[in-house]
């Protein structure tokens, strides 16, 4: 196990204990942390498709919404237990992503726009299929997360621990894929697709797998979110914010890194809610936008590489 991984595990262990210990009694702050982890989950899923698959998606709201609705309907209409419905909802998102496979033939902005269109189609479907989704009126009283072995997952601390576990699992999966031969081939495909295909890489198949994995992760997070907020309506579940915020977070944190998108999501969400919102209660997103613009201009690789480079420089200076 290298130093980086040891640090990640240690940090995770600290987070499991320290955050509930420090903030557990503050429902508002824990709520913000839970929301930031939801954005982080989608940001990791988005970055997996963007970084490994080389496909910039503007439509992850589609998977998020499908996952939320699927889990809500599976639990409410079929009586499936919540903790089983959540991964099933991820699979439903994968199933819906199959409809997007033709878009894999496109690249760059064409792919991004096609996925955006899919997200809109799913939103319209959720609105129009009233017999199933209750249309624009939405679904209320979605079951809360259950209590397992006496531990209430529907409490803020429970939600936090569940989301942190999912996020850790996503990051581990992302890292494992990235290190595998498939991950190496995927990274190579970005700027040299013909060069990889000509040595036997089935680029369409690999991209499809990345789309499925990304859809699954986003669907699962969408499902958890549905059981956290207990209410869904199409305009919320398929809102563009679920497509845009993860992109902003991933770019801010460093979308070429594995953990950057997650860290970026948590930092951006919490700073926006706790600092910028306190400074400018209406339109605080303007400050967020400005910070992002500055990051892109002066640290285009994102926050994590920026911190790493700063640390290296400090170590270099101390050794000199």
């Amino acid at each position, binding site marked *: 196990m290298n130093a980086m991984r040891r640090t990640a595990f240690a940090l995770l262990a600290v987070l499991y204990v320290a955050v509930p210990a420090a903030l557990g009694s503050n429902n508002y702050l824990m709520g913000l942390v839970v929301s930031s982890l939801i954005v982080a989950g989608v940001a990791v899923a988005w970055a997996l498709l963007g970084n490994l698959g080389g496909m910039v998606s503007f439509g992850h709201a589609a998977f998020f919404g499908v996952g939320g609705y699927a889990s809500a309907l599976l639990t409410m209409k079929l009586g499936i237990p919540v903790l089983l419905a959540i991964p099933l909802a991820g699979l439903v998102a994968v199933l819906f992503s199959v409809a997007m496979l033709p878009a894999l033939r496109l690249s760059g902005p064409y792919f991004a726009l096609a996925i955006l269109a899919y997200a809109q189609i799913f939103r319209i479907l959720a609105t129009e299929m009233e017999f199933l989704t209750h249309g624009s009126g939405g679904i209320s009283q979605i079951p809360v997360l259950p209590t397992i072995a006496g531990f209430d997952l529907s409490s803020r601390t429970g939600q936090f621990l569940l989301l942190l576990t999912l996020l850790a699992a996503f990051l581990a999966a992302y890292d494992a894929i990235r290190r595998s031969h498939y991950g190496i081939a995927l990274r190579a495909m970005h700027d*040299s697709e013909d060069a990889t295909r*000509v*040595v036997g*890489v089935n680029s369409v198949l690999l991209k499809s797998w990345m789309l499925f994995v990304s859809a699954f992760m986003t669907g699962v997070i969408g499902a958890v979110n549905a059981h956290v907020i207990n209410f869904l309506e199409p305009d919320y579940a398929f809102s563009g914010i679920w497509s845009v915020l993860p992109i902003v977070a991933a770019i801010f944190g460093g979308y070429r890194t594995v953990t950057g998108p997650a860290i970026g999501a948590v930092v951006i969400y919490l700073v926006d809610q706790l600092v910028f919102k306190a400074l400018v209660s209406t339109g605080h997103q303007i400050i967020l936008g400005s910070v992002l613009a500055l990051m892109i201009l002066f640290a285009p690789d994102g926050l994590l590489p920026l911190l790493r480079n700063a640390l290296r420089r400090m170590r270099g200076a101390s050794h000199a």
Partner: protein
Amino acid sequence: MLELANVTVRFGGLTAVQDISFRMGGDQVVGLVGPNGAGKTTLFNVISGLVRPASGSRVLFAGGDITRLPLHQRARLGLGRSFQIPQPMHELTVRENLIVAQRFGAGRVDPRKIDRILELMDLTDQAERDAANGLALQELKRLEVAKALATEPKLLLLDEVLAGLETVAKRAFMAKLRELHETLGLGILIIEHDIETISSLCHRVAVLDFGQLIADGTPGEVFSNPDVIRSYTGAEPVVENAGVGHA
């Protein structure tokens, strides 16, 4: 080993390759020559699967019809190719380039074999370098061939792999190609402009002009063909010592 039957390629109103039929065995080194725009690279693209030919065209390889087969499946069948402008896989080291080629082209990873290929292509010292940004032109050209070798090919398609190299580097590269042919038993189809190189390296030469095959034979026959001289060389043919590379 490789057979093209009535291959035609059209790009809109332009016919880049017209009704070409051609056959080569796996024990041959064949040169493909012709002026710029004659259709040589397009023909390579048809064989390797990057360009789909017009209906009625057929590409057969190792006994099977591969005309409609996707690019990656052709590579797995044993068709290795290099690009005229080297295309290293970005973000990867030289070794990782070979790992990807071996894993997906040959279906397994054998680190010892990768070491042997690196050694064979004089890339051992460059193995951990960034392939896209850390190599000189001749190293990139060697990497092109090394990647193709890692897929364990039966036939190598080499697109101007010697172009841009200085005389000494070119001779060394030619010796390497001969070694590959003789020791690994690889068939080689090579696009090259230099007549001397072709004459000393190849058993056979095929000449394209305006998308048509205008000559096919030994280097001696081809480079003394008046049609070839007129359309391609514009100079006196090199007849003496032609075709002795493998004689």
